[in-house]
C-alpha cells in the first residue's frame, strides 16, 4: 500500500497546520527540498522546516500535502500523477449503510480553508474527488469552495460522492453555474424498491428523497454516476433495478455496478453481506443487457476478470493502478493480470468466488 500519511519532524511544533505543494525549487506555497541527507530529506516551507525519511521524501515530490506540526504528520492529499485523489469533507453522515467502507463519526473538523488551498495548488487538469461521511451535510461551504476554486482553476474537474439527501429546489439555479458542468456526482442507489433501499442505507425515507434529488439534478443538467454495490439482499432483483434506471433515470451518465469492498462495516459483516456473482451470473448478466439495450452506459467495478461471464468482460472497468498488491498465487501466470481488478488488499479474495481462476 502507498502510505497516505507520513511521519515528519517539524522544527516548530507549535505552528498551525498548513497546506503546501512539495517541490525541488522554492516557490510560493511550496515546501521545497532544502537538504538531502542519506536518511532524511529536509524541506523548508516559509518559516517552518521539517524532515521525513528519505524514501518517503522521494515519493512525495509534486504532491499537495496537509502538514500538521502538532501531530508530526504529513497527509498526502493530492498525490502527483494519481487520478484517484479524494478529499475528505467530513466524517459525519445521516445514513448508516450496512456495508459502509468509511463508517461515519459524530465529530466534524472544519477543514474547508485547507481543502480550498489544496485544490488551488492541484496539478493542471487534475480531477479532485470529495467524499465523507456525507460531504453535502456542509453543502454551502462545499458549494462556496467549488465556486471559488472553479473560477480560479477552470482546468480542474470534480467528483463528489454523495447520498443526495440534501438537495432542494433552491439549488437548481445555483447548480446551473458553469463550474457545476465540471462536477460529476457519484450517487448510490441500491434497489428499485424504496423499502429495500431504505433498509440498506438505514434511513427511512431515503429513497423518496433520492428520487426528488434525481429530478432536481436532471433539471439543472448535472452529470450523475449512479453507483450500485452488489449485496446478498439486492442481487437477485438487479434486473428490476436496471428497468427502473432505464425508464426513470435515463439522464444518468454512467451506471457503476460494483462489488463490495472489504473494509469498514463490510469487514465484520462479510459473510452476511457478500454475494458471489460468479456463482450465479444471471442477475448481473441480465441487468447489464437490459441497461445496454436502452443505451445506458454500464461499468463494472471491483470484480476480478475471471469471475464474470466472458460477455461481461468488455464492461469491466480496467483497473490500472499503483495500489494493486494483493496477488493471489493463482494469478501468477494469468494473462489478465495487468488490467484485472482482482488485486486490491481490501477486496474479496479469489477464495470468495466459486468460479475464478487464471485466464490463459
Amino acid at each position, binding site marked *: 500500500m502507498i502510505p497516505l500519511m507520513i511521519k515528519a519532524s517539524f522544527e516548530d511544533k507549535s505552528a498551525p497546520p498548513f497546506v503546501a505543494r512539495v517541490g525541488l525549487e522554492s516557490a510560493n506555497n511550496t515546501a521545497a527540498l532544502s537538504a538531502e541527507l542519506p536518511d532524511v530529506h529536509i524541506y523548508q516551507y516559509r518559516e517552518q522546516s521539517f524532515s521525513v525519511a528519505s524514501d518517503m521524501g522521494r515519493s512525495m515530490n509534486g504532491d499537495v500535502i496537509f502538514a500538521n506540526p502538532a501531530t508530526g504528520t504529513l497527509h498526502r492529499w493530492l498525490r502527483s500523477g494519481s487520478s484517484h485523489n479524494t478529499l475528505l469533507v467530513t466524517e459525519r453522515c445521516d445514513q448508516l449503510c450496512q456495508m459502509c467502507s468509511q463508517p461515519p463519526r459524530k465529530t466534524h473538523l472544519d477543514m474547508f480553508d485547507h481543502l480550498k488551498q489544496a485544490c488551488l495548488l492541484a496539478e493542471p487538469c487534475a480531477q479532485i474527488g470529495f467524499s465523507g461521511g456525507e460531504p453535502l451535510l456542509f453543502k454551502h461551504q462545499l458549494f462556496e469552495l467549488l465556486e471559488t476554486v472553479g473560477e480560479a482553476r477552470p482546468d480542474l474537474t470534480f467528483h463528489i460522492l454523495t447520498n443526495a439527501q440534501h438537495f432542494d429546489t433552491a439549488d437548481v439555479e445555483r447548480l446551473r453555474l458553469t463550474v457545476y458542468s465540471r462536477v460529476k456526482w457519484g450517487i448510490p442507489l441500491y434497489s*428499485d424498491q424504496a423499502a429495500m433501499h431504505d433498509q440498506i442505507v438505514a434511513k427511512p425515507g431515503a429513497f*423518496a428523497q433520492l*428520487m*426528488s434529488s*434525481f*429530478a432536481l439534478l*436532471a*433539471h439543472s443538467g448535472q452529470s450523475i454516476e449512479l453507483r450500485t454495490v452488489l449485496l446478498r439482499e439486492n442481487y437477485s432483483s438487479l*434486473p428490476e433495478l436496471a*428497468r*427502473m434506471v432505464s*425508464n*426513470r*433515470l*435515463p*439522464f444518468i451518465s454512467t451506471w457503476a455496478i460494483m462489488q463490495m469492498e472489504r473494509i469498514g462495516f463490510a469487514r465484520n459483516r462479510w459473510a452476511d453481506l457478500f454475494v458471489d456473482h460468479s456463482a450465479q451470473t444471471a442477475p448481473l*448478466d*441480465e441487468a*447489464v*443487457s*437490459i441497461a*445496454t*439495450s*436502452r*443505451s445506458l452506459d454500464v461499468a463494472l467495478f471491483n470484480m476480478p476478470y475471471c469471475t464474470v*461471464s466472458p*460477455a*461481461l468482460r*468488455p*464492461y469491466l472497468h480496467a483497473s490500472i493502478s499503483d495500489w494493486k498488491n494483493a496477488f493471489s498465487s493463482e494469478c501468477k501466470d494469468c494473462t489478465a493480470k495487468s488490467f484485472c481488478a482482482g488485486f486490491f488488499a481490501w477486496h474479496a479474495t479469489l477464495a470468495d468466488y466459486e468460479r475464478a481462476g487464471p485466464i490463459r
Partner: protein
Amino acid sequence: MTRALPLRFRRVADDTAIVADEAGRFFRSNMSFVSRLADGHLTPTDKAFLDSRGFLLGKEDQLNETSFLYALAQRLQPPKPLSYVILIPTLRCDLSCAYCQVSRAAQTAKGYDWSEETLQAVLQYLDEHGGESIQIEFQGGEPSLRLDLLERVVQFARARFSKPQFVVCTNLSSIDSAFADFMASEDVYISTSLDGPSWLHEVQRTQNSDRTSRFFSNLSKACDLAPGRVHALPTLDVNRLPEPNELLDAFDAFGLRSIYLRPVSYHGFARKHHPTSVGYDPRWSNFYSSVIHAMISRNTSNCGAAWEEFYLTHLIKRLLRPGENSHADIRSPNWLGYDHLVIDYDGVLYPTDEARMLARTGQVDLNLGNVQNGLDLGRRAQMQAAAFNALDPWCSRCPYQSACGRDPIDDLARHGHVNPPRPRTAFCQRHTHLFDLAASLIYSDCPDTQLSLSKWLELPVPTKLGEQHL
C-alpha cells in the same frame, strides 16, 4: 392526485396492446388494462407499475415528469452539421438495369460529368459546410467511370476531415487495376447490388450470362480487396421474389450477412407502368417476415457473424433507445437538407436521392439550390415544415410515432401532396408492419429470437427486453 401520462395504444392481437407515451417509452399490456386506463379506473397495481416505469405523474418528487421530458428531448434532436453527402460525379453508366431508367446516361454521352468548375465548387462547399467528420457516398451512374474525380475528392477529404469514410456505389461490372488500388484503402467501402440468386440478378440487372458471371467474379474479387468493407443490397420486386433461403444463400456465398431489404421503388413513368407500386403490396410483408425468421433460425450461438436485416435492427434500436437518429429515411423531425445532402452531376443540391429522381422524371423539382450559389434556405424551410410527424392526427395516436418518421418527399412522389391520411400511405403500411414485427420479436419468448436480438443490439446475453404489465 396522481394520473397516467397521456398514452396511446395499438391492439396487436386479440387481447394484447402496445401502449406508449410520446417520448417512445412503451410496454405491452392487455385490453382490460386499456379500458381501465380509458375509464380512469386504474388499480393500485396498475399505478405501481406505471410509476416504476416512469408513466405516473403528479407525485411529489416530479421524477417521472423529468424523465419523460428528458426522453422526449432526446427524440427531438436539433439539426447537426453536414455529415453525409451523396455525390454524383457522373450520370453515365455501362449497364441499364430494369428499374434505373432515369438515373443514368449512356456510357458515351457527353455533358453528364462534373466539370472542373463543379468539382472545385463541390470541394469548397464541403469545406465550408462540413462538420468535423464526414461520410461521402459516390453514386451515379457508375462512379468508377470517373475514378479521377473520386480520387480528388478523397484526397481533399482526408486532409480536411477527421477519419472520413467513402462509399462507392458500383455495379462492379469491371475492376481495373486503378479501381482495385482505390478500394484497397481502409477508409473505402464498396456498396453494390446483389438481387439474390444469379438467375434473378441476371433477369433484373446483367441480362446475359457473360455479364452475370463477370459480376459474380468481380464481387468475390472486391471481397478480397476490401475484406469486411463490401456491402450488397438486393432490389426486390414483389412480383418476382426469391425464396428467403435462396436469397440468404446467395449472400452467404460472399460472407455478407447484414442485408438491407428494400422493395423496388418506381419513379415517374415507371410508377405508371407499375400501378401497384404506388400503394403497399402486402405480399412484401409476408416475404419480409419470412426472411427475418429465416435469419433468426440461422443465428446460432456459434454461427459467427450475425444475420441481420439492417433496417429492422435500426427500427428496434429506435424503439428502445431515444437518440438513434442517424438514418435520414426514418426520423422526426427529419432535418432535410441539414446533415445529409445530395450533390448531382450538375452541382444541384437535393435533400435526398429520391428527391433527385423526382426532379429527373420531371414530377416535382425539390432542389435546394446548387453548390455554386449555396443552399436555398427558403425552400429548405418549406420542406422542413412537412417533416415532423408528432402533430399528425394519425401518428399522434400511434404508439410507434416517436420511433417512426416522416418522409415528405415520398408523400409528394406518391400522393402529390404532403398530407395524405397516414394509414393509406405505403410508408405507414410498411412501417406499421415493421414495427409490429419488431414488437413481436421484442416480446418473443423464443430463445432463438432473443439470441438474435442480443446479437443485433450487441447485448452481453439474450434476455427479455420489453416491459410488460399483464
